[in-house]
């Protein structure tokens, strides 16, 4: 049974905050909105952390009470009145739900804005931020579902985080590569190659024209390939390709492991062999991520973050954490590359929502943009920028769409789209590099690449056989599925 959505029903003075202290703190159970966790007149401070939750209250639970419960359970409350509250300046510690609105077009779902005082958080700790904001609340019985949709981190709090170890600008300077997207590919097959054979794939891809190769997220150290052997053969391949082309090249060596100690050992070996970049998987956890960012900064290493596992909680609109929040946390915690979606490839991502993630990574100041799912302005306080990575089922025939959607500051990764080329890996790399360069050149010349893209590619293919072969093999491939996570404020339909 759906709750009424008219404004009058949402406010009920009889249930508002009890201000008489004796009444407020007598033993017993009060509604969260009576305990002070809802305040419709609250004006958020510049130093407050603001969260937007998308909540689905259980039938019969009023949305304001549900929002107040979220505020309570993510700050100071518990299910019953406790006298010990009076040993604290509790009014200032309490998080305040200050606005509740129905979600357009989705009965039973509400947006709830909650403000958190800065005293609630430890400096420079994403583990602490998440323990509060997504710790208890999501299991709370009166909510059928809850999603942390977006977050505004105040500048005062942003400044306690070191952010990306290298940042987009310095990465480009180290690579000496400007004015175009970077190109990469993940070594395929995902699992099974031994180190010597793995290195061959890396050499061919880099020699042919890619800037980076990449370990897959689940390549760590398995019976078919020990990590030390992989690192040795990969770095031989990287250096050979660098000498062959006169370019700085790299391959993301995956240092994810079971313990921090083992991760540090692997990181050190990567450094000894002269790698410019290492990679970690999201599943290592927030604390490990911050530690690795510290190590990377201290060792001049670019840190690539693979968002393995995020899809378990980012994909369904009604429950979980939006990836835009994950991206904000990762920028604060520190990573230099972050997989943020392709929109046109094999993995989930509506184009507008995905552009929102790119903005969070690359902006100096992210502006509110409802069609892109950005509900708050976010001042990044000069925190370094993250290079977004588009990876998953993309091919040279989509180059115009990718550049139109994402611009130059992105790594475009074509794993299958390089290694699956009919004339071999090197040809696949050449095809991707030529497609990229001709498209950037055409865009700079003022051509309408979104509409003329296929023509521009065909023209370049006349003098580049590998590109012609790539277009012939994959030209018709697209991934047209309905997205599970689109903006509630979308103005145009998703583009496939």
């Amino acid at each position, binding site marked *: 049974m759906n709750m009424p959505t008219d404004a009058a029903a949402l406010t009920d003075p009889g249930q508002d905050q009890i201000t008489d202290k004796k009444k407020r703190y007598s033993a017993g159970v009060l509604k969260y909105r009576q305990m002070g966790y809802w305040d419709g007149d609250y004006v958020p401070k510049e130093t407050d952390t603001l969260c937007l939750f998308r909540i689905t209250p259980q039938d019969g639970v009023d949305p304001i009470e549900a929002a107040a419960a979220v505020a309570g359970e993510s700050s100071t409350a518990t299910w019953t009145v406790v006298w010990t509250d009076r040993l604290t300046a509790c009014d200032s510690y309490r998080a305040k739900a200050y606005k509740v609105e129905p979600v357009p077009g989705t009965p039973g779902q509400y947006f709830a804005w909650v403000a958190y005082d800065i005293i609630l958080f430890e400096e420079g700790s994403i583990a602490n931020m998440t323990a509060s904001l997504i710790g208890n609340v999501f299991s709370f019985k009166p909510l059928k579902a809850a999603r942390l949709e977006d977050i505004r981190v105040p500048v005062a709090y942003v400044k306690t985080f070191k952010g990306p170890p290298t940042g987009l600008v310095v990465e480009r300077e180290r690579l000496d590569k400007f004015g*175009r997207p970077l190109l990469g590919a993940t070594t395929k097959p995902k699992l099974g190659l031994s180190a010597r054979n793995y290195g061959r794939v890396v050499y061919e891809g880099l020699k042919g024209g890619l800037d980076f190769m990449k370990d897959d997220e689940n390549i760590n150290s398995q019976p078919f390939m020990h990590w030390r052997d992989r690192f040795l053969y990969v770095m031989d391949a990287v*250096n050979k390709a660098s000498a062959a*082309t*006169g370019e700085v090249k790299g391959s993301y060596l995956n240092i994810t492991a079971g313990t921090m100690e083992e991760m540090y050992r692997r990181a050190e070996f990567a450094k000894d062999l002269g790698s410019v970049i290492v990679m970690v998987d999201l599943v290592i956890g927030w604390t490990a991520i911050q530690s690795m960012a510290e190590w990377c900064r201290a060792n001049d290493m670019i840190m690539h973050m693979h968002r393995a596992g995020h899809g378990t909680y980012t994909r369904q609109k009604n429950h979980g954490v939006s990836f835009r929040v994950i991206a904000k946390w990762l920028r604060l915690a520190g990573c230099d590359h972050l997989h943020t979606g392709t929109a046109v490839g094999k993995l989930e991502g509506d184009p507008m929502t995905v552009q929102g993630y790119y903005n969070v990574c690359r902006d100096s100041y992210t502006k509110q943009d409802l069609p892109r799912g950005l509900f708050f302005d976010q001042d990044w306080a000069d925190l370094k920028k993250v290079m977004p990575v588009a990876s998953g089922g993309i091919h040279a025939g989509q180059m115009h769409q990718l550049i139109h959607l994402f611009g130059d500051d992105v790594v475009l990764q074509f794993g299958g789209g390089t290694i699956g080329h009919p004339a071999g890996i090197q040809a696949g790399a050449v095809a991707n590099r030529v497609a990229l*360069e001709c498209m950037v050149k055409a865009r700079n010349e*003022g051509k309408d690449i979104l509409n003329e893209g296929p023509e521009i590619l065909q023209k*370049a293919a006349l003098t580049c056989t590998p590109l012609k072969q790539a277009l012939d093999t994959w030209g018709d491939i697209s991934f047209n599925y309905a997205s599970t996570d689109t903006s509630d404020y979308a103005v145009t339909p998703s583009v496939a």
Partner: protein
Amino acid sequence: MMSNATGRITQGQFSFLPDLTDDEITLQIAYGLNKGYAWSIEYTDDPHPRNTYWEMYGMPMFDLADPAGVLMELNACRKTFPQHYIRMMAFDSTRGVETIAMSFIVNRPANEPGFGLVRQEVNGRSMQYTVHSYAADRPEGQRYGS
């Protein structure tokens, strides 16, 4: 170079495409000027991938808003250093960027011997690598013919 499909060093934005004509270069210059970038010209005969500092051909042209003027400087540089690598660089001074936004090679020596890989065996199976430029064995001015 047998190990390089293009036979030349592939630094910069457009090294995999046929050399840009002057008209095509002018279009790129115009694009950069429209974005508010400042163009500069640099040359070198040491194109090692880690050689950040090429020689500046004059100062960055912060106040030159006419593509033809920038192209004129480029052609003057080509006349002076016909056998050097020359690149066009566009600088973006926006806060939070303050770096190069465009960079592409517009002149090359007729013959590019490229680089060799020097390996030094160290502990276990580890190797230390260095990329070695064949041309840089000779002094400046004698590297790529007269």
